[in-house]
């Protein structure tokens, strides 16, 4: 293999906003991708010093160890309420929550609906990996029918455990929401789109347009019981049909940003 001896230009590198710490995530877990995208967007928008993250309880609990900005950590499910408290005090700062599907869609359903209903001017990054990663892969409200998890060993039975909850669809029906989209982290094309959405969501907040959320379909190879590459396929086959990628709510003012952006 040749080592190029011409001058080389860096075209992609680990963003500064990420701390120099090895993450605790399992190999191939796409939480890390989401972190990186957020870090890049904060950098690009030049708001690293003016942003406050609200971490939640789930595998991403230590996201604050990796993204080098001011952070608080909320009780399980309560990040939208905590973020509301932060944002109301600091309306000029950017406030986001980073929540898993157990956190947001199960225990935290009340808080997310009401933050959205209030049109709280915050941004929510919602990492949907169809299970409770941190506690060992139990069923989440987002687990798909038939999905075997450590708390649905015979597969999710919709008759007793109910149907998957489509959070983006649900929240989009609330008048308070301005920008609700679903993206996926399973390949580079989708990751690029995810980043754009993350950027738009933050810009929505910067323009005080109200509640924005980016749902990110994410892999959990460990609890899905597959390797990281297989997990990408598993996501495409099992999650995207139930959670289609798309824009669920984009109010006209937001559409304008995106055209300009």
């Amino acid at each position, binding site marked *: 293999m040749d080592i190029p001896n011409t001058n080389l230009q860096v075209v992609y590198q680990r963003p500064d906003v990420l701390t120099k710490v090895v993450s605790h995530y399992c190999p191939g877990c796409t939480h890390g991708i989401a972190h990186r995208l957020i870090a890049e967007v904060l950098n690009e928008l030049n708001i690293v010093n003016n942003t406050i993250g609200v971490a939640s309880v789930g595998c991403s609990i230590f996201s604050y160890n990796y993204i080098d900005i001011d952070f608080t*950590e909320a009780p399980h499910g309560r990040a939208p309420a905590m973020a509301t408290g932060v944002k109301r005090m600091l309306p000029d700062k950017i406030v986001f929550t980073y929540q898993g599907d157990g956190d947001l869609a199960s225990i935290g359903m009340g808080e997310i609906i009401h933050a959205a209903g209030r049109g709280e001017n915050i941004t929510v990054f919602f990492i949907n990996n169809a299970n409770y990663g941190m506690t060992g892969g139990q069923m989440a409200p987002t687990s798909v029918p038939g999905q075997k998890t450590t708390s649905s060993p015979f597969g999710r039975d919709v008759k007793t455990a109910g149907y998957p909850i489509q959070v983006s669809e649900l929240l989009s029906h609330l008048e308070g929401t301005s920008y609700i989209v679903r993206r996926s982290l399973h390949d580079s094309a989708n990751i690029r789109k995810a980043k754009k959405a993350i950027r738009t969501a933050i810009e929505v907040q910067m323009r005080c347009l109200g509640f924005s959320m980016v749902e990110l379909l994410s892999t959990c190879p460990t609890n899905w019981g597959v390797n990281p590459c297989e997990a990408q396929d598993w996501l495409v086959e099992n999650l995207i049909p139930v959670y289609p990628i798309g824009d669920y709510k984009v109010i006209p003012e937001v559409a304008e940003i995106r055209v300009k952006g």
Partner: protein
Amino acid sequence: MTRELLKGNLAIAETAIRVGLDAYFGYPITPQTELLEWMSRRMVEEERVFLQAESELAAINMVYGAACTGARVMTSSSGPGISLMMEGISYIAATEVPFVLVDVMRAGPGLGNIDAAQSDYNQIIHGGGHGDYHQIVLAPSTIQESIDYTVLAFDLAEKYRMVTVVLIDGIIGQMMEPGILPEMKPARTKQPDWIPPKWAVRGKEGHDRHLLTSIHMSPTLEEGLNLRLLKQWREIRLKETRYKEYYLDDAEIVVVGFGTAGRVALSAVRTARSYGIKVGLFRPISLRPFPEEALEKLVDQTKAFLVVEMNTGQMYKDIKKIVSNQSRVEFYGRVGGVIPFPDEILSEIRRISSMSYQSENIDPIDAWIQRLEDIRKTEAVGR
């Protein structure tokens, strides 16, 4: 500074506003709702933050978030709502951010009813949330005290970065009395002398980033946090006790009661004095830290303590721990929203003053249950 006729709930709310409350988050529940309603008007008038949360659970976490920014924050609730805040309070205590909680107690357990009680003493004093944490609890008994101890509550909360509770009951919340409110000041974070606390999460402009969390995966670090909290508490325990004494100089019987029970007892003590009974009143105001030393000092002179509460003897147990084995401790309580009348306490004082102190062997609680059941038979109508 004029004396005004003020309701307890409003006095506390307006005091908080005047000492610079930045934000109030709450949820309606009787007998606290007027406090929230007052905030909904006045905070908006003052261009501060008022938000009616979707629940007490959300309210405490909004408080948590706002407190993390270094702002002056308050919430208030009662019984069931306070129970819903327990997780959040434990988190806030672990994170060491200050806020003031107003608990206007009503009768429980369960939904109970909306009349005044003191049956959440244990929950507030001995930790309703999980984990080893401590909170300062101030129990005013008049409107003026409600004002003064609300002022103090913010100071202590911020000094020690600690949850501080103003504990009243439906009576103090709903009654009016003259009181002098503090001067009006701007919101704390808008005051010219205010600089953000060094731990506040407000964006890392100009300094290394701040992180406020309650998780420490390493047991050693978590133990360190626990010890730090404990050591701070040991200090507060000595420094921050408050109480009021009445007629204790020559008292042989000491009535102990806080809040409403304390003031009802005062009436009884006065009447008993007029009968020549050597009785006084010890009214703890800081229930945490409890004024143990002050109470212990009374042990030698005292033949019997009478603890009066609006519960089944929760503070009584703590008092017993402090003074027992040296002195007899008796109990009288009314429960479930029933407020004792002064004459009930008076007859307790008379009973005690005329009895030979070591005579009865029956547990004071069992004895009280018997007496109360007799009383209840006679008063079916009167209440």
